[in-house]
């Protein structure tokens, strides 16, 4: 099976990104493919590299970045939702005249079309949200 995953809430405030992470790990461990993880609504905030969570708690962004690296996952942050919430890569920062970018390793910013494309190409689409 090819799974497409949507994460539509941000880190810590909702359990969504944790549940999604656990699902993705289990899917990969049981031999399935995860074609894309698409971050929408506040889910884009999972992709900031500037978070400093308490040391005795799970490091949500780092976990995703590490998982993406290990399994070559495609972590996509929706550009429209990201712009609203101030999640930028260098390209966007330059384009929009902002003085910084904050995207974490392993994430890329792209359009909503990537979500639809994911829905078309995956066998199953699962959303973790509120």
């Amino acid at each position, binding site marked *: 099976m090819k799974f497409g995953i949507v994460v539509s809430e941000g880190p810590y405030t909702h359990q969504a990104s944790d549940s999604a992470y656990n699902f993705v790990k289990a899917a990969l461990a049981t031999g399935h493919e995860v074609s894309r993880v698409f971050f929408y*609504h506040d889910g884009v905030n999972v992709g900031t590299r500037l978070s400093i969570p308490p040391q005795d708690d799970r490091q949500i962004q780092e976990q995703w970045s590490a998982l993406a690296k290990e399994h070559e996952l495609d972590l996509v942050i929706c550009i429209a939702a990201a712009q609203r919430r101030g999640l930028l890569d260098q390209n966007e920062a330059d384009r929009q005249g902002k003085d910084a970018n904050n995207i974490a390793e392993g994430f890329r910013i792209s359009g909503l079309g990537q979500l639809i494309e994911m829905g*078309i190409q995956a066998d199953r*689409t699962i959303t973790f949200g509120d």
Partner: protein
Amino acid sequence: MSDVKKFLYVNRKAPYGTIYAQEALEVVLIGAAFDQDVSLAFLDDGVFQLTKGQDTKDAGLKNFSPTFRALGDYEVTKLYVEQESLDERGLTLDDLQDIQYEDEDDDYNEKPSIIVVSRAQMADVMADQDVVLSF
């Protein structure tokens, strides 16, 4: 050539108190370019998204309700609205916007995009989909 899949966008939340209604619409508009078989479902508090006369000026919010009337231009013409959800909330079809599309297979006659269905029929619509996106 990809197969055409049935996409259902499920809307269960009221507008303005949260962003889900508005950002769901943004997905629908972008998704329209992919030529899939698209339907929208409005149930529970989602039916509130379609009411007429939304005036957000004093609240300082963006009024995105006109976008529903543009859906026909994007060939999104199936807006399923649940009767029981309307009834529970004291709404009738009259309280909702008049959303139309031009049927190119019928001389571009204007037809309503809103299809009021029972809960049981809504369940059947849901069970018929390939991809269900909830917001």
